[in-house]
């Protein structure tokens, strides 16, 4: 079945572009980058259809073993790829959405520097992401995990001339390290406990275990895995990196930080479902963290003024939803949004990107407005995304959210109510952003300018130099992916993931009808309020902001979480390293040791130089004397 071809193709693209890209023309780079992803997408289709993934087949895990990677004692970790239905979902999402975003990016990045670099990184990300989902054991999963982390770091810091971009990259990387630390510990525990890291075998063993005896282990492993998941999937307390990650180019935000990478945590937890099923506590924690994240992120999203930030927080909150789904034991319901969310969130970001593109790099909502005439396609597609995410039936968001909320209600009603409220908020801020962007009259200053926008601090001011004067619709290569995604996010909900995953996670349980009505109602209410605030009487929000000054300030500043982290974690560490590690450890000890070694070596050298008489026979004499000594010594010691 040649599963290895799937990741290898993007890797080939990465190597080609990365090595020769500097000399290649943009057309060639596009062909390589998009072509590799396209090929891998087609190969995924072929493989999955051959495995019968689309025709109700693939009940069992299909596994391919390539070679044994680490072999020590009983532990034998092979480089194996495996496909089951869960993986199939991710494969489709990653390659499909990835392909669309690649195509989009060729248009979006057309005027950027480091063109080949961008696509090389993007391909590399595809490679690692596919390894992540294809890997048949925790170690390979971890390889992909770290790889995508690396790529996200590289791509967030893509505009490495901008201080804040590199800072954001570092932030993402470091915060993820914390999560990965937990993940690594979890892997160690698993390896130590099960003597293997292979998913299937581990899960088999877990299934047979009696819950009472194994709960301790399972809880430990589950919690550590959860730490990793919170890092990668931006959950409380490690979500802070994701909003900043928007410093990267918009396609990156769409692909990595909305559609694929951030769902890796979901994937990992769904993979280890058995472990969580053996530890109700860990499972509850997943749910609680999820709901909390969803709520907090939504509240923050309420009053963000940067369009990408809004969508970023909505991503966090949606991921929170998924965690709720997982945490309430309805794993299939938790996985369902992964696909739909990939569709509409990617669409949102790409649309935002198209808006930003149109405005030559403007991201502030306060500088937009009344764009629906100017960029109609973007407007329509974004609207589709909005209704989808708001959970308006019968669009995709409705199905997925409904499934989760049903599960949540069965698990704990309060969770359901919080979820419903959050859904309302989600609908509100998404439509707030859309209304501010497309309705009303234009508040920007772009018409008078000659395409040189004044916002030098902005990541996308690279656009400025390229003579986009005035507001313009994006080229076809950009809006065609938008259209496709729009269709998907409208109709994607009818791909019944829970039923598809039933053989793995059991049949999804139908909630009562009224649950559904309530959630839909809250969504519609959110939309309505948004319309009231920002279409009919724009004075109301200011009044509210003035009225509730303190909460508004807190929300605007994201609950000062970053400042809190800075004061508690970051600054002490920085000071400590300044004072001790640098001044004492580095300068005194390490440098001292190095220089000392150098001096000693030079001194001995200047002594040994005297032996270099240049007369071969002297050297020979030394050799002979030495050998005589050695032989005599060994002879006297009497051992040969």
């Amino acid at each position, binding site marked *: 079945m040649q599963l290895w071809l799937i990741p290898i193709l993007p890797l080939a693209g990465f190597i080609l572009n990365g090595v020769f890209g500097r000399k290649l023309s943009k057309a060639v780079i596009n062909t390589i980058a998009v072509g590799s992803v396209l090929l891998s997408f087609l190969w995924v289709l072929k493989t999955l259809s051959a495995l019968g993934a689309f025709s109700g087949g693939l009940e069992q895990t299909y596994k391919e073993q390539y070679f044994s990677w680490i072999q020590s004692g009983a532990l034998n970790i092979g480089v194996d790829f495996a496909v089951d239905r869960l993986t199939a979902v991710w494969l489709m999402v990653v390659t499909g959405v990835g392909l669309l975003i690649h195509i989009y990016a060729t248009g979006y990045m057309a005027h950027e520097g480091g063109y080949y670099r961008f696509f090389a990184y993007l391909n590399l990300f595809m490679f690692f992401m596919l390894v992540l989902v294809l890997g048949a054991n925790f170690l390979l999963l971890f390889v992909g995990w770290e790889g995508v982390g690396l790529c996200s770091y590289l791509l967030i810091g893509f505009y490495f001339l901008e201080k804040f971009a590199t800072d954001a990259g570092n932030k993402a990387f470091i915060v993820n390290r914390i999560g990965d630390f937990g993940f690594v510990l979890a892997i160690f525990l698993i390896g130590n406990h099960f003597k293997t890291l292979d998913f299937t075998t581990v899960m088999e063993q877990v299934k047979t275990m009696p819950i009472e005896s194994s709960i301790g282990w399972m809880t430990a492993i589950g919690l550590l895995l959860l730490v990793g998941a919170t890092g990668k999937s931006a959950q409380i307390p490690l979500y802070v990196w994701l909003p900043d990650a928007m410093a990267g180019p918009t396609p990156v935000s769409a692909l990595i930080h909305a559609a694929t990478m951030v769902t890796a945590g979901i994937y990992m937890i769904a993979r280890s479902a058995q472990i969580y099923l053996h530890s109700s506590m860990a499972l509850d924690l997943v749910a609680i963290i999820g709901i909390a994240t969803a709520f907090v992120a939504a509240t923050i999203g309420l009053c963000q003024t940067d369009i990408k930030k809004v969508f970023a927080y909505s991503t966090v909150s949606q991921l929170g939803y998924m965690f709720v789904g997982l945490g309430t034991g309805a794993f299939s319901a938790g996985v369902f949004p992964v696909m739909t969310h990939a569709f509409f969130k990617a669409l949102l970001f790409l649309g935002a990107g198209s808006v930003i593109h149109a405005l030559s790099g403007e991201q502030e909502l306060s500088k937009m407005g009344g764009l629906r005439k100017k960029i109609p396609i973007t407007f329509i597609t974004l609207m589709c995304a909005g209704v989808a995410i708001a959970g308006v039936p019968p669009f995709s968001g409705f199905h997925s959210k409904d499934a989760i909320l049903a599960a949540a209600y069965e698990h704990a009603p309060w969770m359901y109510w919080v979820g419903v409220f959050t859904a309302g908020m989600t609908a509100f801020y998404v439509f707030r952003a859309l209304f501010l962007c497309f309705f009303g009259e234009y508040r920007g200053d772009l018409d008078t300018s000659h395409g040189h926008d004044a916002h030098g601090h902005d990541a996308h001011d690279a656009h400025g130099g390229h003579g986009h004067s005035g507001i313009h619709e994006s080229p076809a290569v950009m809006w065609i992916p938008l259209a496709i995604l729009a269709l998907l996010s409208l109709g994607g909900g009818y791909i019944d993931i829970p039923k598809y995953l039933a053989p793995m996670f059991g049949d999804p349980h139908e909630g009562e009808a009224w649950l559904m009505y309530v959630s839909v109602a809250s969504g519609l209410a959110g939309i309505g309020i948004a319309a009231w605030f920002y279409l009919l009487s724009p004075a109301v929000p200011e009044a509210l902001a003035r009225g509730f000054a303190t909460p508004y300030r807190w929300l605007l500043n994201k609950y000062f979480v970053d400042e809190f982290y800075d004061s508690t974690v970051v600054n002490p560490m920085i000071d400590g390293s300044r004072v001790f590690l640098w001044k004492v450890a580095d300068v005194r000890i390490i440098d001292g040791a190095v220089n000392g070694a150098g001096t000693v070596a030079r001194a001995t050298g200047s002594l040994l130089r005297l032996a*270099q008489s*240049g*007369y*071969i*026979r002297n050297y*020979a004499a030394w050799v*002979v004397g030495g050998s005589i000594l050695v032989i005599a010594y060994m002879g006297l010691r009497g051992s040969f």
Partner: protein
Amino acid sequence: MPPMPQLSLSGVVPFNWYLILSVILFALGVAGFLFRRNIITVFMSIELMLNAVNLTFIAFSYKMGQNDGHIFSFFVMVVAAAEAAVGLAIILTVFKNRQTLEIDEVSSLNN
């Protein structure tokens, strides 16, 4: 240390004698290397040492009762032939450049 076996002209040759012979030859090779100043002679002393080692190989393969030692000394010979070819070419070049075979005159590597 066991006493030297009695020398009986009619008897068999004590195995150790071969080794001792090769030791002596090797030592003489070393001596030649150390005391002669003519590059070619030095080179020949090296060949002498190689021969001594070959003798050890042959003797031991007799003792072990298998002919791997012969193969080894065969390889030694081949390598020695190659070495001689290259080495003599080098010597020729040295002589062309310095008009001398004194090994001590060729000491531009000192200190």
